[in-house]
């Protein structure tokens, strides 16, 4: 008999006498332990790790990845995938900064940029949810189209000369921590709350588990799926705003390869490529873990060129674990 976690049981779970054993089965706990071990190891191996400059670097760097991973978690939960997030980030970055360069007001530039990202998401969602085209194909197309438009718009040049007020969004700090870190944490908390309590997101679990049964149960499968893709793209758009303001420029190659990191983090955090599962805190911890591994690699003088190899390897391992976990479930 397999007892599992219901969508609707926030209270009684940890009260069980098996609380400790359960705790160790909880993916977030495992991730937290891994993070602790790696942090201790890195602080012993290299004094540079604990410097405030390095920690700020790690945390700001992971903010972009975190936003993307949160969006990806929702899409994976819906049994979808979004390969276009990196490109949408690039396109939003280019559109927003070009408008600013042309003298548009900051709210207008951000508004249009976010609108572009939402439109990309809505296009993905429409093809997937209403025309029933495989998400892999749709978002692979969007990945190419969005990056292509960003390239055409800038002819490959940097977009610079941004107003100082805009740069303050990404460069401003409170208690020596950048604003965007607070922003991302607020998103994490709100999203985790909504994923537990908000009906459309609860229904996303049903959709990802069995879309046809969900439709027959009266769940708005298409609309919620569309919403998931829009949210995912807008998370990429948000990351683009922070990235361009922090780096004081826009560039068509921003977000290159970001989709792989986002998928890896979401899957390590508990999402499955086969839909129906996903955890906001899990994804958050996974992003942190990946950022630490990356940072350790750099601090220990690994070649930056090998980083992609490591990220790719981690992604494959995460997906293998996911496949294994599903097989166990199926044999149950």
């Amino acid at each position, binding site marked *: 008999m397999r007892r599992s976690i*219901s969508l609707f049981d926030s209270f009684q779970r940890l009260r069980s006498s098996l609380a400790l054993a359960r705790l160790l089965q909880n993916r977030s706990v495992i991730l937290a332990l891994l993070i602790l071990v790696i942090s201790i190891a890195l602080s012993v191996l290299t004094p540079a790790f604990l410097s405030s400059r390095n920690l700020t670097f790690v945390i700001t760097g992971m903010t972009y990845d975190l936003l993307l991973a949160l969006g990806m978690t929702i899409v994976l939960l819906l049994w979808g995938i979004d390969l276009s997030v990196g490109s949408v980030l690039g396109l939003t970055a280019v559109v927003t900064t070009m408008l600013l360069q042309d003298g548009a007001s900051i709210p207008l530039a951000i508004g249009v940029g976010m609108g572009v990202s939402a439109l990309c998401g809505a296009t993905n969602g429409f093809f997937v949810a209403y025309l029933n085209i495989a998400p892999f194909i749709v978002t692979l197309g969007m990945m190419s189209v969005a990056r292509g438009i960003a390239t055409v718009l800038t002819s490959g040049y940097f977009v610079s000369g941004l107003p100082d007020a805009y740069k303050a969004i990404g460069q401003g700090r409170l208690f020596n921590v950048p604003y965007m870190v607070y922003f991302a944490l607020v998103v994490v908390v709100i999203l985790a709350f909504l994923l537990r309590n908000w009906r459309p997101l609860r229904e996303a*679990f049903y959709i990802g*588990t069995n879309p046809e049964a969900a439709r*027959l149960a009266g769940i708005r499968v298409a609309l919620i799926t569309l919403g998931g893709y829009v949210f995912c793209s807008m998370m990429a758009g948000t990351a683009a705003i922070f990235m361009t303001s922090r780096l004081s420029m826009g560039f068509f190659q921003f977000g290159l390869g970001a989709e792989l990191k986002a998928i890896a983090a979401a899957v390590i955090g508990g999402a499955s490529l086969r839909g129906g599962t996903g955890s906001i805190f899990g994804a958050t911890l996974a992003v942190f873990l990946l950022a630490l591994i990356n940072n350790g690699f750099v601090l220990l003088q690994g070649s930056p060129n090998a980083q992609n190899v490591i990220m790719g390897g981690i992604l494959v391992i995460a997906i293998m674990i996911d496949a294994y976990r599903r097989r166990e479930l199926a044999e149950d």
Partner: protein
Amino acid sequence: MTPVLEIRRASKSFGSHRVLHEVSFGVDAGEVHALVGENGAGKSTLMNIISGIHRRDAGEILLNGESIDPTDPWQARQLGISVVFQELSLTPNMTVAQNIFVRREPTSALGLVHWRQLNDDARALFERIGIDISPTELVGNYSVGIQQIIEIAKAISFDAKVLIMDEPTSALSESEVDRLFSIIAELKQQGVAIVFISHKLGEVLRIADRVSVLRDGEMVGVVNPSHSNQDEIIHMMVGRSLGDLYPAKGVVSDEILLEVEGLSHPPLFRDISFSLRRGEILGIAGLVGAGRTEVARAIFGADRYSRGSVKLAGIKLDLKSPRQAIEKGIVYLTEDRKVMGLFLSMTMRDNIVSSALARFTDALGLLKHRAIVNESLRAIKQNDIRPRDDLLSMTSLSGGNQQKSLLAKCLSANPKVLIADEPTRGVDVGAKVKIHQALRDLANRGIGVIVISSELPEVLGLSDRVVVFREGHVSAVLDGDNIAQADVMRYAVQ
């Protein structure tokens, strides 16, 4: 004369469920021997035993007087027994000839395929059965009817002495049936022994030399079609009493709850009209494929229909999705609980409330967890789902308890009308009785219940009235306590 194929006292059980009991059956060279029986009478199992898909528990299979023991359909074919299954086994993207001789292509010493000989062989085969099909055409370009004939050509290309056909006409138009029958006549001439399994008694009487009737896994008799008629065969198929398995019938109000008028969506169903009264259990009988599920899904808003109307309590509905149907109070219990009904990897609790989340949502769209837990526990008690632990994953429940959970899921939505499609499929007798009682309790509470079932005793034992479907239309509406199974069967078959 020894029969070409003879089965002697074959028995087969799956677990404690006896499917075949000491069944004997024989077919002579140049004979068409039909095998008929209700759904679940054991026809398919008998065929699977002959073709080696299942192993028999007892009994003997003789081919030309010699005992054989095929272990898979391929081996049975090598012995001369070919089966044409209901589901076609052809690959649409390959040519006709490639399909027929798959794995047996004539090759040169180097292992290269002799294409010309392959096509010539196919052509010779078609000549033998007197039909004109191009061997080089892709199979996918032909209609299902022609594909059925290609399938038969493939079956006899193994130099078949015995050809077994399972419902070969189910997907064929009338002219295609005629063509199939002329091919069967041709094969008879050539001395092939043919076993013809079908529901359509009209066709059976037309083509068969002998008809064997199976009922509940036992051979109840062999008749000669020229000295028999459909009625006699139907009585042999269904002759048994219902017993006291079914709950007492209730009092049906005169108030019409659901009215279906002229519902059509060709070619699936045409001009379907019936009404359902408050507190009534309306049975829908008919053969698999008669359009019952399609009509139910159309009423529920899961599929579209092209003409006709559905009225609930006198108000015309125009449902565009199951969500709207559930809002209006119409709920559908699907026939396929694993694929379309349940969320198997989720918990019992998640499943039970899945159709009713609207009831547990506050103004902000946030869910009321406490109310959900209470509803789930209440439903488990009410429907007697075991074990009483609503955090168990659906996969760890038995079929009967899964089915009860599916019913609980439908009921959580507080329906006015429940359409239950095969509500007891694949459940044990105990769960069956409980589900029957639950359906009658619902009707007694004033809910209109439609029960679709392929098991005639169930439809008759449970229903206040019975609508019979045949090939996408309503062939009869039968009223009263004493509807005979034979009557329903007569309207369900041709």
